[in-house]
């Protein structure tokens, strides 16, 4: 149940690697945060794991299975990977219920219905508005919907690209607490790219700091939080915490 990236090199144009022999590991049930300055390759790493970007070298392995050559939709359907993009991650014109159904289309109908009702119970705010259009939701509720939808097929690995982007501080705290609850309840491992370092590290088990597509620092969330150099150089103007 481990998700790992081994010595991966990847980029968008030939001969320009964004990820330079990068390796990370996410153990079962772990929340791992990827931090780093803009352009360090954080989102590129997630795109490589999910299959939107093909690595030039190296391997992505989920639960012992090499994902090379497996297209995005197959990784989502068959390999237990779920991905929540940073922007435009809900389909606004559809209702909340329809959005959830879209996420569970490959689950058997009876199991899909049961899962949908279960998730609507876990997300009472969404449950109360299940028939409302998704674009009527607030920013925080949209992120909750995107998360709930990603959980529809029962993934083992949840990839989140800056889930707190654009949220108020209050919503952000609620979202991170919710991510921890998801991990505890569903038993999924979470690989999360974040800009809000201190807040995301509070709920994480471990973290990697990327610089220029390489792992600059790795450790437990506490170690990264207390590392002043990391805080000053890569996580903001001062120490992260």
């Amino acid at each position: 149940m481990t998700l790992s990236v081994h010595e991966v090199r990847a980029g968008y144009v030939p001969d320009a690697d964004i990820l330079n022999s990068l390796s990370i590991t996410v153990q079962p049930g772990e929340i791992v945060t990827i931090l780093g300055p803009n352009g360090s390759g954080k989102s590129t790493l997630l795109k490589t794991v999910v299959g939107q970007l093909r690595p030039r070298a190296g391997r992505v392995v989920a639960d012992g299975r090499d994902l090379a050559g497996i297209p995005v939709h197959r990784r989502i359907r068959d390999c237990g990977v779920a991905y929540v993009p940073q922007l435009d991650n809900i389909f606004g014109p559809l209702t909340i219920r329809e959005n959830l159904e879209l996420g569970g289309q490959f689950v058997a109908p009876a199991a899909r219905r049961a899962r949908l009702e279960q998730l609507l119970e876990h997300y009472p705010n969404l449950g109360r508005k299940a028939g409302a259009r998704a674009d009527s939701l607030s920013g925080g509720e949209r992120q909750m919907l995107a998360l709930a939808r990603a959980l529809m097929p029962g993934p083992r690995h949840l990839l989140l690209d800056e889930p707190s982007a654009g949220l108020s501080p209050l919503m952000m705290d609620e979202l991170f607490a919710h991510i921890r609850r998801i991990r505890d309840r569903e038993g999924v491992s979470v690989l999360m790219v974040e800009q809000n370092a201190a807040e995301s590290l509070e709920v994480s088990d471990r973290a990697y700091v990327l610089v220029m597509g390489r792992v600059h620092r790795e450790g437990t969330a506490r170690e990264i939080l207390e590392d002043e150099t990391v805080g000053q150089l890569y996580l903001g103007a001062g120490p992260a915490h």
Partner: protein
Amino acid sequence: MLEFCLHVLIMSAIFGIAAVSLNLQAGTSGLLNFGQIALFGIGAYAVAILTRAGLPWPAALPAGMAAAALGGFAIGRLGRDLAAEYWALATLAVAELVRLVALNEDWLTGGPQGIGGIGGLFPGLDGMARALATLALAALLLLGTALVARRLGETQFGRVLRLMRENPDLATALGHDIVTCKVKVLAIGGAMAGLAGGLYTLYLAFIGPDQLLPFETFLIWTMVVLGGLGNVAGAVVGALLVTTLYAGIPFLKDVVALPSDLTGSLRVFAIGSIVLAVLMLKPQGLVPERLRRHHAQRP
């Protein structure tokens, strides 16, 4: 006059089917097929060739649909790795390819002269009765096609198609194989366009390469854009409007003193002007899609 009206209605129904087909591809699924006339033409020629070979039209028509569905499948598979804009250009090229084959392969297509003398629809009927029966058949097939397209749009598959149109990356991130979705839509749309083409051939008892010019694709696009991209009813309304204008404008010369050679240009000018006016004043078309009507509300 009644015969003319019947003719306009029959042509509206036939092109209505082609417009519903294009609407499924472009309006619902976001596939910019600029080669719609190729699918129409494949169906038209297949029906012409098969009926000339002695096959009765009720058997030739489904065969024409199957041939056009295969054409749609091939276009979808061939362009599966192309970006949307390049795929759109490729469809234009495919349409020209089909027309050039029709123009040059005399042994099969009759070359520039096309295929004539096709045993048309309802040979046992004459005049008005034949026109009425043809109209009833065309209207019935349009209704069936529209219902299929509408039902398809309401299914889970239809939602995926709309998601693919609005946000293909998200569709993929949810585990949907958008290449397969595209191929399926093009095959279904191809079958519909092939039905329109086959009906057209049977009604006019003729098909030739001049009927497969890129301008015909422009006309079908005009119908869909005028009616409202993404709305089945809009495509039908657009087809009726454009066909009526296209057929009716030449009669202006009987009302206003116009040289007859000007009327051909005038109808193209008039349709172009109406399209521009609709795009400026009502860009979502005369009968907008429900999703698009609410699109502006999205924060």
